[in-house]
């Protein structure tokens, strides 16, 4: 296959960027999208040019680092598929492909196709955890969890934090990501304890990091490679409304655990 690529090139966070045209020749349909870029980079290196910088790690669709918007769609044309799992057979010989980084104020470009997603980390640090007093390993099934709740939590936990939801959102909002984390923990008894504080702290942090708000366009669900659903956003909204009577909601964690668990 021969393809024409327009790739976003940007030397650094503050440098201006632009789309540059490259020809990808002799690409096999069995290659993954990232392998195709490897081939292009090898030829760039041979010609003495700067190779295209892009993020990747596992190349098996679980780490969430590969972050490319392909023809305007985060992770490209195949549903529920990360860029690393996308294969060139999804394209046709002679196609023109536009490759750009995630675009959002909260995700500044580091170089070419690589963006800084640590804003997600800071949302997690704000409340995406449970405070536990470590001790002995609890007995199996000492804490009963209904199957339905366990399933909901597992579905939400599928989020790999890749940021495609932010990239797809016309508002650059991190609601799907935040909602997946909030729902995951709120579905489990261990997470209920801090549920009210968590939803407030995490959504506040989302705003502080420069993400937009949710207008319910549902672009995020369509772009998510892991099938995280917008019903989790409804769940986040429910959790937020339940937390309203608590006042400003930014109080430090109460030292006595279990007071909120009975709700």
């Amino acid at each position, binding site marked *: 296959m021969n393809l024409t690529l*327009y790739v976003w090139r940007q030397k650094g966070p503050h440098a201006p960027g632009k*789309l540059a045209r490259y020809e990808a020749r002799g690409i096999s349909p069995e290659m993954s999208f990232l392998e195709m870029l490897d081939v292009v980079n090898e030829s760039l290196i041979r010609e003495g040019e700067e190779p295209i910088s892009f993020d990747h790690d596992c190349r098996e669709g679980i780490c969430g680092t590969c972050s490319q*918007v392909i*023809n*305007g*769609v985060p992770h490209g044309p195949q549903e529920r598929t990360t860029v690393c799992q996308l294969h060139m057979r999804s394209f046709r010989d002679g196609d023109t492909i*536009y490759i*750009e980084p995630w*675009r*959002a*104020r*909260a995700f500044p470009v580091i170089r070419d196709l690589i963006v800084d997603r640590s804003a997600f980390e800071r949302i997690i640090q704000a409340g995406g955890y449970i405070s536990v007093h470590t001790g002995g390993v609890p007995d199996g099934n000492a804490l009963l969890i209904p199957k339905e709740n366990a399933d909901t939590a597992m579905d939400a936990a599928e989020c790999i934090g890749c940021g495609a939801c932010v990239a*797809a*959102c*016309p*508002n*650059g*909002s991190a609601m799907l990501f935040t909602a997946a984390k909030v729902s995951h923990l709120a579905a489990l008894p261990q997470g209920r304890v801090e549920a009210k504080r968590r939803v*407030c702290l995490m*959504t*506040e942090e*989302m*705003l502080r990091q*420069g*993400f*937009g*708000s*949710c*207008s*319910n*366009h*549902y*672009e995020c*669900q*369509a*772009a998510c490679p892991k099938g995280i*659903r*917008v*019903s989790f*956003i*409804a*769940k*986040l*909204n*429910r*959790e*937020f*409304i339940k937390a*309203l*009577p608590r*006042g*400003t*909601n930014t109080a430090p964690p109460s030292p006595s655990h279990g007071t909120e668990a009975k709700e």
Partner: protein
Amino acid sequence: MRVLVTSQVGKKVLMAVSGQLMTLFVIVHMLGNTTLFFGGLNAYAAKLHSLLLLVWTARLLMLTALVAHVVPGIQLYLENRKAKPGSYAIRNSLRATFASKNMVWTGMIIGAFLIYHLLHFTFQFIHPEQGASANIDPLGRPDVSRMVLFSFQSTAHALMYITALTALLLHLTHGIQSSFQSLGLNTDRSIPVIVRSGFVVAMVLFLGYIAVPLIILLGILKG
């Protein structure tokens, strides 16, 4: 409760509640309009205006809802625009619709129309000589029918109303379903049902409203 005005999620909750209150008003208003088709508009208006407490409660509630809707609406719009600097070379919308992407503009059109509509039919500053308070019907009631019939004889005027109602149709097509999501009243199973019902309600409202200028313009309803 302070988070209702500071948090992005809180602002959306405010917008959803106020949007739903205004939608309820818009439904009742349309039902009231239908009295025109049976020649009962003057009687309806006279009865309604005799219920001062009801009228003023509704007015104050709507004014509050409007403020609670428009202020966060514009704030969020500006915030969201800042959060997304620049778009992609090719933009492929996967799910967003024309209606969902233009909420702030259809909202502004509704807002501008609202001011005009109040000046026109409520305060009767526009064509005051045709206003209901200037003309009494044979039963001694303010002649609302005459005012409405006169207004929509003008094609330009009728078209202006129809344009504003199209903006309302678009706003509610996305707005109704979106408000349920913002209030967390959604699950995987309810989402498609609510999306479709929201569209149906918005469409029924649109048709109910445009019927008034249309049948007058087409000469089906005469004075």
